[in-house]
């Protein structure tokens, strides 16, 4: 019995000590494994394909590069040609797309305008159109390889919006919910709900062939298990490593981290037109004091371990070209914040929270339900230094959160926004634009000047001009109105075995390319 106990303790001790030599191989040689062994297994947080009747199987949110849209977005979030080689604005509200020649679907059928028309009709039917205003008859066949697309409402940002996996072109007569048949460098092999999705190389691909023979997504909901699966060698990489774990992964031999370029932003939004009880943010000076009380640099360094960057716009800087520098930072001056609040008659109480005429400076903050708690507490602590109490009321899910925001019964909202397409005015138009009638979550009432600039950005076919107008609109939103307080732009972080080569993290994780990735010995 004593021997058994000793053995058990030994095993536990071995487990607790960790063994770096077992994990991967430090300084992996660059020589690629033979093609037969080129299988890459990535762990993702969970099987989201199963929801929404599998209409985006293999496309979103985990993109196995089975399907392709007409246009894509590159590392700089600018659109790049994929299945359409030329895009022409035809005037009015119509864009013409000329298709790439010689492209075939995985089932051997040729890519043609009819396939594009049917795919866009499917987007409308399955309600995947986002803010594109694609209707069932929006796409019209011009000839074998030319298609015209006219949204149901004016939308000259269409080319950037359709560079999203939702707008993938599907082989006619096939149902992606059963088996996605498209044109991408990988083709569907196997899907076991809640367990795995497997894709294999498509040898007839029109572009550069994939180096991997097989790409496997394994669904692991628990983030600690994902990390342990990587350390045990069962998977080659994991999605969404928490920033707090970056240092420890870097410290383990055989592993490496690969952050995406910042593609999402953390933004505080203020309620400019709240009803009684939620009307404090109607005062521009209070909004200004709130902005000045926050230190995004400290947030980026402490909470994001230096992987995030301070921003002055609500969109990631890369999508705006050279524009962001034109928007001034409105944060990080605690002394001035306190002076403003003192001048306005807000005096600190015994609990450190300011009050005036018996009313506490407490701001109801319905943060997004899955917003990282540590960052939330950090932001709360920063506001509290100035005597502002951010009273967080987290909603249990997205629907409840949307209802809360749309009811107007809130003062400040903290959220993060993803830039998943190349549209430079996407985030301002989605959230603050008064003429947007189909948004799930909407902060209204910035004013006519802002709306006019967003309208101009939406009405120009030129992306650079749209970016410039978007920056102008953000100057109103941020500098003039303080309706939005941008804090940081942050990456998503992949952790990989060191033996994985050719991987370049894309700023939009659901557009991650896998063609150049391979495994080395």
């Amino acid at each position, binding site marked *: 019995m004593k021997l058994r106990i000793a053995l058990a303790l030994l095993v536990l001790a071995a487990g607790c*000590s960790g063994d770096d030599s077992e994990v991967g191989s430090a300084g992996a040689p660059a020589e690629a494994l033979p093609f037969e062994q080129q299988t890459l297994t990535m762990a993702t947080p969970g099987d989201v394909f199963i*929801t929404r009747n599998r209409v985006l199987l293999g496309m979103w949110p985990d993109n196995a590069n089975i399907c392709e849209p007409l246009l894509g977005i590159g590392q700089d979030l600018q659109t790049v040609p994929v299945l359409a080689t030329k895009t022409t604005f035809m005037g009015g509200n119509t864009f013409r797309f000329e298709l790439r020649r010689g492209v075939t679907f995985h089932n051997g059928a040729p890519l043609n305008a009819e396939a594009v028309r049917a795919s866009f009709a499917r987007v409308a039917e399955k309600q995947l159109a986002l803010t594109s205003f694609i209707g069932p008859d929006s796409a019209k066949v011009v000839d074998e390889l030319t298609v015209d697309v006219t949204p149901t409402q004016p939308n000259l940002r269409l080319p950037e919006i359709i560079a999203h996996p939702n707008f993938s072109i599907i082989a006619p007569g096939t149902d992606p919910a059963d088996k996605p048949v498209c044109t991408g460098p990988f083709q569907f092999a196997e899907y076991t709900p809640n367990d795995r999705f497997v894709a294999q190389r498509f040898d007839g691909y029109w572009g550069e062939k994939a180096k991997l023979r097989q790409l496997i997504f394994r669904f692991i909901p628990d983030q600690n*298990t994902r990390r342990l*699966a990587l350390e045990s*060698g069962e998977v080659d990489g994991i999605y969404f490593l928490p920033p707090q774990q970056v240092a420890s992964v870097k410290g383990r031999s055989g592993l490496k981290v690969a952050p995406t370029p910042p593609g999402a932003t953390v933004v505080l939004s203020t309620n400019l037109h709240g009803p009684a009880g939620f009307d404090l943010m109607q005062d521009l000076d209070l909004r200004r004091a709130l902005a000045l009380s926050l230190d995004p640099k400290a947030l980026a360094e402490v909470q994001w371990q230096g992987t995030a960057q301070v921003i002055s716009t609500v969109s990631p800087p890369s999508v705006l070209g050279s524009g962001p520098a034109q928007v001034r930072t409105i944060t990080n001056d605690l002394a001035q914040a306190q002076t403003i609040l003192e001048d306005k008659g807000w005096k600190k109480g015994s609990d450190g929270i300011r009050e005036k005429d018996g009313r506490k400076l407490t701001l109801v903050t319905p943060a997004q339900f899955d917003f990282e708690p540590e960052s939330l507490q950090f932001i709360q602590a920063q506001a509290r230094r100035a005597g502002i109490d951010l009273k967080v009321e987290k909603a249990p899910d997205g*629907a409840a959160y949307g209802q809360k925001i749309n009811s107007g019964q809130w003062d400040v909202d903290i959220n993060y926004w993803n830039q998943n397409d190349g549209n430079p005015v996407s985030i301002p138009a989605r959230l603050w634009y008064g003429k947007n009638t189909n948004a799930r979550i909407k902060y209204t009432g910035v004013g006519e000047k802002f709306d006019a600039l967003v309208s101009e950005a939406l009405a120009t076919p030129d992306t650079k001009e749209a970016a410039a107008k978007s920056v102008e609109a953000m100057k109103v939103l941020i500098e003039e109105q303080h309706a939005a307080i941008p804090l940081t732009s942050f990456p998503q972080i992949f952790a990989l075995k060191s033996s994985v080569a050719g991987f370049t993290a894309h700023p939009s994780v659901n557009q991650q390319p896998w063609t150049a990735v391979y495994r080395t010995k």
Partner: protein
Amino acid sequence: MLSYLAERAAWMALALFGVSVLTFGLGALAPGDPAEVVVERRLNQPPPREQVEEERRALGLDRPILQQYVRWLGRAVRGDLGRSWLRGIPVSDALRQRVPQTAALAAAAACLSILVGVPLGVLSAGRRSSLADHLCRVGSLLGASIPSYFVAYLLVFTFSVSLRALPVFGFGTPAHLILPAVTLALGPTSTLVRLTRSSVLEALGEDYVRTARAMGRGRLGVLFGHALRNALVPILTVIALSLGHLLAGAIAVETVFAWPGLGDLTVTAIKDRDYPLIQGVVLLSGAAYVLVNFAVDVSYGWVDPRIRVEKRRARR
């Protein structure tokens, strides 16, 4: 015996009725308008009022609550638990996909806890105050106290990351079953060790044990043939309760090991506020619990003849 069975069956039916009321009440009392949630999820944007009203009529939510309950119960009895809001498939299909995995895990954990827990409890009682007894008592106390997710990570770290002996996650092979089953079995095993020990110790003080010893029965024969047999009723009760818990889905264990069973389904259903799915899981778990307890109630009469005799006397 038949009347005993009928009485237990009547209690089971009453318990199932209670479960159905609670399950339906869960959906009815939940915050928010189900019709609005269904339409919003379908459109992926705030729904127009007319469509919400149309959906409310289609779901029967415009009827009085009692009528809604009777309609829901009628369908549930026929196996129709509605459709999952988010997945768009019948709830019964979603449950059917997950039950085999949970049943396999629960069966493995139950077997493990019985095969380990009962002999250890008997051993502990038979060697009272020995080193083995002390170790069993301390071990069972620890096993019952440590949270299952902590045990899960510890086992994964030891056997998967360091020793590379077992897979970290997933299902499909016997090797995948080992770590989740051991983790899940730890709590029930600890309870069984302690309960078996105390029950057998009590039996060991009885006259029939002394008589058996006086008649020359061996140590093991006395322990297992006389003491354990007479101590089985409380042990069976604990096994039944444990099995009910295991079938209800071990949420933490299934989440840690990415085991696609009812526990994992429960977590995603709650996250998505998918009430028909939550109702389905709760109803199924409640029914499993009640049925297992019914089976154990019935087995009492078989295990302990005194219960049969008492029932017969009561009837006279």
